[in-house]
């Protein structure tokens, strides 16, 4: 993978562990800092937050990384929880910002292991939990 050599803050990995093991968060929103040399934690979602609240917390016109824990009823009727890793890079923002997020995706992904599915979203309308759940239901 060609990367741009971005550093990732330790918060990201720590809070991800809290999300996954302690189940204390619903989502994490991760961004690149203003100096464009480090990936930092932007926002953390409460455990009872919904997907709509997550969508409100996301900026519409700026790229972000996000981790979200989906809960839904699976094919067998049992409740399932799956963690998705999202790269949100809207087509409307400038290529410089999109480029930074696309090249540093790999380093962020390594810090939020393990997760169930990686999703690349490029449009506000595609940020949709129904569509994400479809990846796990066949």
């Amino acid at each position, binding site marked *: 993978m060609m990367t741009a*050599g971005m550093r990732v803050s330790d918060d990201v990995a720590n809070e991800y562990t809290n999300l996954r093991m302690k189940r204390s968060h619903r989502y994490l929103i991760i961004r690149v800092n203003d100096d464009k040399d480090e990936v930092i934690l932007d926002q953390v979602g409460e455990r009872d937050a919904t997907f709509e609240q997550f969508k409100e917390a996301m900026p519409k016109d700026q790229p972000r990384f996000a981790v979200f824990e989906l809960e839904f009823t699976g094919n067998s009727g049992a409740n399932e929880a799956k963690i998705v890793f999202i790269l949100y890079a809207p087509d409307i923002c400038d290529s410089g910002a999109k480029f930074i997020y696309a*090249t540093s995706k790999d380093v962020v992904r390594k810090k939020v292991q393990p997760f169930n599915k990686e999703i690349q979203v490029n449009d506000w309308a595609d940020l949709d939990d129904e569509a994400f759940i479809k990846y796990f239901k066949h």
Partner: protein
Amino acid sequence: MYCGDDVSSCVIDIGSYQTRAGIQMHVIYIFNRVFWRRLSSKCDPITNGDQDVEMVDAEGENKSRSSKRLVVGSAELNYKRDNMEIQPLFSDQGILNFDFIEDILNKSLIDNLMINPKETPLLFTEQALHNKEARIKLTEFMFEKYQVPAIFICKAPVLASFACGRSTAIIVDSGSKTTYATPVHDGYALQKCIIKYDIGGQQLTSDLRTWLENDRKIEVIPRFGFKKKFQNINGVENFEVSRLDIDGVHPSYLNWAKDEVVRELKEEMFYVSEDQIDDRSLETIKGLNYELPDGQSINLQGERVSFTEKMFVPNEKLPGFTGIQHMIVESIGKSDIDIRRDLFQNVILSGGNTLFKGFLERLQRQIPEISPQNVKVKVISSNERKFSPWVGGSILSSLGSFQQMWMSRQEYEEHGSIMIERKCP
């Protein structure tokens, strides 16, 4: 590791039609620093010295090198010289001619961008198909000949997909000579899935010229082949066109100059039909008049779409080619089953040949017809798609965190040129 603070690096994207080179400053990209360059042109010794005194002075050292003098650049190219021969930078097999590249780089870096290659790291783009020998040769050439401090080589489709904010996508790169379909996954161009056909803008231009000359019996006159004089006789304004003698011009230069006239006609008048065309739909197309530079008028109707249609239907000259939409679906079909859905949602256009009006709509309409039924197809294009690899390279080289990725001169001296394979996967 090359860690110069505040480096301004230069991005060079060599194409078969033009080479794009530019300096990256603190802002992300500066378009007016991009220099457009025609193919390298080779010039025979010039006998009529009068007009060329200045030129010889400016490039005096080139002349002493050999009896043939290389002239590079669109400004020089548009100036007619007798016996000037044009030679392409790439051979028919797509191999770079290193004799010419030196002159192109000299011209674009030293003369036009006014940088010193000894102080400036250079980022090159390369075509999707991995060619180990070519990149090793380029590395050696740059370090030995230009003594550059650092170099990086990156695949053009990877840069184009990153510039669109995607690390997984399929890039449809249609240039002047070739069309590639390259799936990119996590920043790697998937070598086994690349599909390439020799169809591109140059092919369309030469087809159009053949048609104009054979079917319409129109003689294409290059811009230097006539003189236009403005007349005002009793209030009636018109231009008087008189032909000039063009016998001394080398056939290859004449050929190129005629192609340029036809290319402008193509870019101005042609578009891609929304759906597959038949005889009946051709009649509904609006006819338009086009005036060639020498005043000849051509009426074009169905031809406005029938030439571009060649990119979407089987072609007897290219065995195996059944249309760009089939190329894309076939290339996705070769890739891993897990990423196919993502690839269908991220079809990215790149290259000057995709600038035809309606190109995107046509693909958006035809890919779903031949793709699996439950996938969503989305074709994306950016306004800068004519040189998106250059834009991507320019952003990449401007990132502060990228500066540790360059292959530096020290590394070259320690490990040799093979190191480029490890530094730039």
